[in-house]
């Protein structure tokens, strides 16, 4: 323990911190525990051990279809928000024009706007436009909510790039594109990767926008899971949830490896 904390103050700090760690982990651990419970209803304490619920989930066509849709949607969203967001971040950091601050505020505004309202507004406009393809509508909605994350992480990493290196490359004869590709991009690669990973995870988990734009034919994972919570009472729901928890853990570890979590999130 650090010498900064001592006596009663330290006791309070560490007790609350430990309590909060327990608070954060308890529901997730419980979900994982009941997913292997060998009874036909979700009960506490869990009884026995079985993997049969996982077998059931992995044969559930609705769930698999939702997984496929969610992964494709998240990949498309990642590509879309990177294509739009990375150049925009460049403009924000390197540009020097009138109204830059206002434009930055505008580009980041979907972050503070309640996503539920973003989705509703989009539903209204897409209905008016006659856009019937739920997959396209979902892609548009997800890019709206994920692009600010990409802009934020890429802006942060661009601010750390040493412009002298670019000047040097240009002086030595590299053109703009080559300079970007060989000098700038390697320096911001982790920021771009973190932004992309964020976009993927936000899209995969998004409920408030998805709720409005999905239909019965194209329902991503969060919607299917929500439906299952209401209708299914056997441990296949915790089994599905555990699969999602494990996927998220992989995402977190990737993020930690790529950029370090605090930096990625504090951006």
């Amino acid at each position, binding site marked *: *323990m*650090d010498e*900064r904390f001592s006596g009663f*103050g330290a006791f309070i*700090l*560490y007790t*609350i911190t430990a309590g*909060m760690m327990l608070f*954060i*982990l*308890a*529901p*997730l651990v*419980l*979900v994982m525990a009941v997913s292997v419970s060998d009874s036909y209803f*979700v009960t*506490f304490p869990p009884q026995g051990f079985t993997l049969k619920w996982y077998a059931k989930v992995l044969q559930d066509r609705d769930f698999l279809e939702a997984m496929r849709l969610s992964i494709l949607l998240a990949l498309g969203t990642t590509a879309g928000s990177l294509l*739009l*967001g990375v*150049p925009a971040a*460049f*403009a*924000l950091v390197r*540009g*020097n024009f009138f109204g830059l601050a206002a434009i930055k505020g505008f580009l980041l505004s979907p972050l*503070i*706007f*309640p996503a*539920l*309202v*973003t989705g*509703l*507004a*989009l539903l*209204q*406009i897409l209905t*008016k436009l006659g856009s019937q393809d739920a997959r396209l509508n979902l892609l548009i909605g997800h*890019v*709206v909510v994920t*692009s600010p994350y990409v802009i934020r992480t890429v802006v942060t990493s661009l601010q750390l790039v040493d412009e002298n290196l670019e*000047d040097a490359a*240009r*002086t030595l*004869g590299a053109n*703009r594109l080559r300079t970007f590709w060989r000098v700038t991009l390697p320096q911001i690669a982790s920021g771009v990767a973190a932004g992309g990973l964020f976009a993927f*995870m936000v899209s995969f*988990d998004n*409920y*408030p926008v998805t709720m409005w734009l999905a239909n019965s034919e194209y329902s991503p994972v*969060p919607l299917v*899971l*929500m439906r299952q*919570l209401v209708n299914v009472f056997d441990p296949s729901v*915790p089994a599905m*949830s555990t699969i*999602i*928890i494990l996927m998220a853990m992989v*995402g*977190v570890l990737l993020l930690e490896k790529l950029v370090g979590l*605090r930096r990625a999130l504090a951006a």
Partner: protein
Amino acid sequence: MTTSDDAVAVLGAEAPPAAWRGSRWRLALPVGLLAVPMLAFLAYFFFYPALGLLLSSIQTQDSRGIIGRPFTLAHYARLINVELYARVLWTTLRISIITSALATVLAYPVALVMVKSRPMITRIITLIVIAPLIVSVVVRGYGWQLVLQNGPKGMLNWVLMTLHVIDAPLSVLYTEAAVVIGSLHVFFPMMVLPLASALGKIDPNLEDAARMLGAPWWKVFLRVTLPLSMPGFVAGFTLVFSLTAGSFVIPAILGGASAIMLGNLIEQQIFVVYDWPFGAAIAVVLVGLVLAVNGVSMWLLEGRRLRRPD
């Protein structure tokens, strides 16, 4: 920047022409154009729809479901005057304020430990705080449903009864308390991270100085650490408040019929009642609430009213 343009010219490369270096505008304009696709996309799929929603909130819907004139503020009046709806508004405010306040009180110790402990402990706490952030909100709501389950089979009740803390099972699920607990779980990282980053920026010498001058730990915290961490507090409070007020999933799973929030009311009005103008009006009120809180917090942060150097 004093790159020798002559040297560049001699090398004959495709280097920036001298004029570009001199004039900021010429250098800036092409770079600025890179933002155009993103701007156009958001203008069309975010800004324009938001205005459309604002418009339909003051329009009327006829019996065939077509929205148009005359303009009216009746939908807003309805939200305030009909007791059922007004109660949802108050519930939303109450849950959001209680959640943010609880998050603040509980996040301070965690952020302090996170910033000032050995790297190993910091790392573990960071991982535990952040990991759930990425786990689906639906899954976390479900987890809390299992923990708080009413009756002796719920985990919380089972543990408390086994330890003989209580004799009869508590009924926490489907109350406001359950929604506060779930929201706290979902949005806690949004409080810890800004707090930790604000605490990390405080010069440790200030606290050392206070300590050496004889201040006890709580006085150091109240007089030095707390005031200097205000920017993180304001940012965190704003985030948690905004996100809780706009949430849908947690109240839907944990609140049941007794703790409906604005988001759930909007969904109900659109998908069940098909009352678009009223749904839009509630959405506008929700946005107004969130923007107001964000506006106050910007005013506090940008004006640096929180960073008095004394």
